[in-house]
């Protein structure tokens, strides 16, 4: 076996990308293609009174106009969701500014856009529901009349005895936190090309995080069987959770069916900010109870989550926010009420962290507050209560590996925590005040309860007669480098050069029907499946080689593409053996097959929400150092240290890349990003006004990879990409408190908020 595990390796598709040869969804073209555009509601809540599409239909170059009020379309929702609250085009009501009302397909984009502007829609504007507390009231106007309530989902978590914990506590701290609507900011907008064949089967060429979920959901949305849908995944220009099922895709199929031609649709950046699926904003009220020595006794919380106009993956996100952070520390008494609430705002969906950035902002800021009350070092407080390897938590999470304490210890050492805590605590009234703060988080590596069907992964490993290998996984590379990890695993297990392994984009007609990429599942679940498939393929090729070399399989080893008999000097090249295998089976190339079903996982109990949802849990500790300007409120980031227990770094070069990128997104979440909404209208329509971190905004970042070697992960590997974002905002917020003594409880922490708080503080003094 040539061992690439743990070697720093650039992505295997880097050369395609750096030469401009890679074809992304938005680049894809078919001959005879038409261009589609969407007519979107200008109002946040309204009844459609009348639609006149006559002039649009008459415009030369227009090949189809489809109006929602004129056709029958089924109700549907995303995979596994039973409340079918959406429809491809609005039937009678629009529920958010951006809601899809009509479609046009034309010979070019300009004509399509002109036609869209020619469609006249008369709306009766209805009172909009924008405030979460108000939306929960029984007399509130309803977003979905048929459901009778704006509370889309509610859940209660109850472990131990919270009231007793509160009564027995020496110290109780309270807080109320708000996290904003933020966008994934993937550089490539949503795109789709779609075409129907003569037998009523539709093909989608889409940048999607899941070929299978797309197939499942778009079939439902179109009212056809899954067997009538083929998804050809195209390389993605970023995903971050935002490219699971997306309405633009089946909308395009409607136009393709109507016109009988391939149709392409691409979102503008304005449409991305108006009508894609941003992070679920949350309001979190939280209380922590502790004894004087710092033992956490209990946690009580109430979470209001903004669903927007349609469900999407809201319930899973609420479940994550109400349950996951409970497992970070050894807390026995927990009571949480969570509500997912419909509003007349853009529907929200999955975004890296999936509820954890929201819940951890609240928890980790509260812990900092508690540390102040107890006069205890915040890192000590965390170490004292940290979950440990072997723990079974109140949620029944089994922590087969847990590097949390190591992450805390390593990061405080590298960040020079103790001396800086002391040094920055002096000179607090300087114009430029420095501070250092810490926060922790955890995540899952795959999530059994996300979808009802199954959790796990499968792969095929095909060895063709030149000894070149094609890996066919069930998970998509969304730019994070999973195809490279898969290639590394296969090359290592087969003992061949990395260059011999290819991992093409996915096709639902060929690849296993794996669930796709989300939930930090790809390395752990997909990697295990790919490994199993490679082992299976190796067994098959070694059998052929053994016969050819007249030896036993046990005597054979493969190194650098040569199969050696250890007992003699006999050898055969991998390619030769592969060719032999193929010719002996009349051209059937060796195909290894492997599956991985995570052991010991379950769906959560429908009421208690208890359940060990993952077979491995990653942990993170992050430290942020800031300098706050008291006169301007501006925060300068001086340094970030991120310690990540990822089990095992299969590819440390790209693992570091994941951490750096996640930290950047976390910085945006903490300090500069917000989709500013007023009465359901998103005000920032471009990157000019939606401020994501740029090259000059980034501080030095030190990434520490802690390898706790999880027994269930391939080579010990757990998830990585999501938790590296989650703890940044509270780390920065805690550093700001350390610097200037004010806590900003709503993100993003803008200079204006800091100045206001400083002024308030001055007044009190």
């Amino acid at each position: 076996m040539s061992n690439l595990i743990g070697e720093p390796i650039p992505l295997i598709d880097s050369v395609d990308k750096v030469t401009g040869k890679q074809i992304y969804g938005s680049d894809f073209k078919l001959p005879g293609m038409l261009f589609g555009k969407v007519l979107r509601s200008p109002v946040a809540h309204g009844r459609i009174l009348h639609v006149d599409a006559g002039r649009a239909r008459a415009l030369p170059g227009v090949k189809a106009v489809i109006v929602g009020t004129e056709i029958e379309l089924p109700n549907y929702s995303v995979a596994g969701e039973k409340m079918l609250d959406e429809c491809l085009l609005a039937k009678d009501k629009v529920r958010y500014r951006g809601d899809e009302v009509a479609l046009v397909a034309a010979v070019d984009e300009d004509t399509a856009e002109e036609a869209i502007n020619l469609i006249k829609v008369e709306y009766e504007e209805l009172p909009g529901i924008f405030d979460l507390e108000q939306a929960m009231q029984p007399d509130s106007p309803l977003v979905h009349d048929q459901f009778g309530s704006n509370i889309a989902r509610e859940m209660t978590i109850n472990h131990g005895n919270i009231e007793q914990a509160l009564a027995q506590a020496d110290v109780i701290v309270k807080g109320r936190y708000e996290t904003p609507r933020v966008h994934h900011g993937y550089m490539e907008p949503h795109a789709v090309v779609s075409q129907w064949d003569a037998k009523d089967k539709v093909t989608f060429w889409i940048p999607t995080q899941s070929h299978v979920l797309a197939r499942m959901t778009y079939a439902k949305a179109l009212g056809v069987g899954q067997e009538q849908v083929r998804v050809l995944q195209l390389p993605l220009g970023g995903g971050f959770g935002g490219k699971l099922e997306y309405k633009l895709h089946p909308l395009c199929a409607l136009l393709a069916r109507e016109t009988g031609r391939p149709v392409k649709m691409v979102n503008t950046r304005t449409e991305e900010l108006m009508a894609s699926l941003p992070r679920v904003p949350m309001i979190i009220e939280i209380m922590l109870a502790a004894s004087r020595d710092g033992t956490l006794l209990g946690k009580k919380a109430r979470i209001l989550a903004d669903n927007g106009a349609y469900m999407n993956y809201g319930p899973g996100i609420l479940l994550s926010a109400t349950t996951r952070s409970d497992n970070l520390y050894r807390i026995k008494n927990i009571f949480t009420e969570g509500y997912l609430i419909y509003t007349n705002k853009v529907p929200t969906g999955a975004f890296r962290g999936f509820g954890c950035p929201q819940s951890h902002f609240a928890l980790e800021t509260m812990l900092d507050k508690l540390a102040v009350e107890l006069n205890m070092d915040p890192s000590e407080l965390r170490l004292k209560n940290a979950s440990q390897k072997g723990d079974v938590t109140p949620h029944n999470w089994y922590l087969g590996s847990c590097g949390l304490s190591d992450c805390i210890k390593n990061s405080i050492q590298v960040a020079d925590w103790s001396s800086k805590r002391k040094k920055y605590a002096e000179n607090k009234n300087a114009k430029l005040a420095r501070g250092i703060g810490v926060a922790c988080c955890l995540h899952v590596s795959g999530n059994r309860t996300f979808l009802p069907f199954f959790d796990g992964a499968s792969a095929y490993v095909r060895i063709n007669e030149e000894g070149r290998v094609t890996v066919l996984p069930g998970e998509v590379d969304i730019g994070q480098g999973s195809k490279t990890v898969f290639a590394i695993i296969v090359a290592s297990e087969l003992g061949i050069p990395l260059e011999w392994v290819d991992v093409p984009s996915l096709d639902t007609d060929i690849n296993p029907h794996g669930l796709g990429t989300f939930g930090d599942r790809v390395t752990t679940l997909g990697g295990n499946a790919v490994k199993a498939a490679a082992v299976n393929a190796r067994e098959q090729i070694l059998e052929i080689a053994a016969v050819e070399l007249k030896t036993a399989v046990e005597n054979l080893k493969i190194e650098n593409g040569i199969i050696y008999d250890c007992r003699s000097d006999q050898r055969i090249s991998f390619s030769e053996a592969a060719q032999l295998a193929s010719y002996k089976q009349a051209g059937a190339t060796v195909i290894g097959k492997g599956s991985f079903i995570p052991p010991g996982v379950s769906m959560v109990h429908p009421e208690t929400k208890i359940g060990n949802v993952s077979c491995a849990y990653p942990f993170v500790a992050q430290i942020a150092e800031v300098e706050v300007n008291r006169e301007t409120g501006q925060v300068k980031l001086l340094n970030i240290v991120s310690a990540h227990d990822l089990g095992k770094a299969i590819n440390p070069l790209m693992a570091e890349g994941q951490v750096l990128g996640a930290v950047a997104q976390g910085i945006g979440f903490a300090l500069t990003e917000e989709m500013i909404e007023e009465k359901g209208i998103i005000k920032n329509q471009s990157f000019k006004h939606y401020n994501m971190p740029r090259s000059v905004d980034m501080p030095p970042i030190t990434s520490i990879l802690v390898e706790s070697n999880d027994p269930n992960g391939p080579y010990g590997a757990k998830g990585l990409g999501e938790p590296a974002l989650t703890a940044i905002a509270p780390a920065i917020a805690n550093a700001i408190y350390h610097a200037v003594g004010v806590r900003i409880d709503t993100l993003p922490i803008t200079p204006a908020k800091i100045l206001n708080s400083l002024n308030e503080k001055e007044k009190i003094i």
Partner: protein
Amino acid sequence: MQNIIKITVNGEHYEKEVLVHKSLLDFLRDDINLTGTKKGCDNGDCGSCTVLLNGKPVNSCMMLAVEADGCEVLTIEGISNGKELHPIQRAFVDSGAIQCGYCTPGMVIAAKALLDENFNPTEKEIREAIVGHLCRCTGYDQIVSAIKKAANSLNDK
């Protein structure tokens, strides 16, 4: 309404009729099929569409194709010398500076523009040179390292 433009792209001469309101970006991607230059925002905010126009980096989404009449354009497809990667491209690959790759063409063009003017940029100068380029995947560090590495590599030649 259409006009005829004469434009050299990656050393190749084109004489083409183009809609007067079409951006240079759309001309490159749609009319002459060079899809390596990307559309990220169509608003001059993200840098994905950056090409070299007469040697200077421009957001091709923010200019009309007709404005490029008589000009020389270099896109990502023209960076490598036939098959061999340009040292900037090689450095990007080796440094792990590429994840999804969507910002990469623009970044490479920006790096070329920088290194053509300043053969030994400081980290600060590198970060300023790519400030107009958004990347959501990498957090920029590995891109900055790549550009530094490319500078060293070019200086060794």
